[in-house]
């Protein structure tokens, strides 16, 4: 098999996941896009491992690790999302801005701003700290 086929598929899948992470607003959907990116990486690892016929199967073993990591990530991620949902009544990433810098931080809920996966840890800290926005 031409190595370009699996490699290109992995690249395109990764970019689709990248689009999802950047464009999605619902946290669970962002987690799903992250899964797509991880799956693309796994495909790459497997393809190159098979190509090199590695004695140690490093690529495939690493894929196994990656799958386990993805499962752990989803477990923790969903626990966080559910906690945030219970506290705030929303899982929209751009509304979870309690720790936002600068003026107007409290009104941040109205302002839609840059969205990325990094907003997720913010949400837990916010949930632990002061309750600015109540659902």
């Amino acid at each position, binding site marked *: 098999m031409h190595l370009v086929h699996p490699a290109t598929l992995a690249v395109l*899948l990764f970019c689709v996941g990248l689009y999802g992470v950047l464009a999605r607003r619902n946290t669970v959907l962002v987690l799903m896009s992250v899964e797509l990116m991880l799956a693309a990486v796994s495909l790459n690892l497997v393809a190159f491992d098979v190509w090199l016929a590695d004695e140690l199967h490093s690529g495939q073993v690493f894929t196994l690790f990656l799958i386990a990591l993805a499962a752990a990530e989803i477990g923790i991620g*969903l*626990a966080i999302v559910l906690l945030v949902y219970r506290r705030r009544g929303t899982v929209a990433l751009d509304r979870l801005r309690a720790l936002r810098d600068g003026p107007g931080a409290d009104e941040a809920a109205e302002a839609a701003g840059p969205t990325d996966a990094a907003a997720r840890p913010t949400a837990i800290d916010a949930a632990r700290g002061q309750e600015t926005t109540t659902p």
Partner: protein
Amino acid sequence: MSAGALPVLAAVGESGRSVLSPSGVEIVFLLVAVVVLGAAILCVTSRHLVHAALYLVVALGGLAVEYLLLTAEFIAWVQVLIYLGSVVVLLLFGLMLTRAPIGPSPDADSRNKPVALVVALAAAATLVTLVVDAFRTTWIDLSTPHGRSDALGESLFRTWVLPFEALSVLLLAALVGAIVISRARRDDSEEGRR
């Protein structure tokens, strides 16, 4: 896929193999690849939350088929077991608990969709060019299966046993972490639930 294949149409491998005369495995691989990509694109664009999760099932299941075609049998079944059996069920569970409605949700996407599209397309163009240019004349030899469970287990528990143990510690940490997070403390919990 077609964009990726175009520049290599003329390339001929060392033993006369060419992209113009794909083998049966390659044809199946490309067909499944189209399904995987289509499902993935629907997964990140669908406005129906649960539909997106089900498209993810299709995409990941298709990937398992690709692993089978690459003779990585064990990885394929682990992929089905963990991703389709557990991860997607967890995701659906999460969607149901956060009240995913039936029908489209207008707030599934944020406002920076155009930016995301530009970034994704730019990344795709760069990476596809790079990959195609780098591996134009590289062929995978699939005649001997590479990824049977016994060989994989041997290298996992001989060579990679230390990372394996480290991973098990990490999984334990994740388990404890998930329990701690989902266990809302009684004193500051708004609803007074456990």
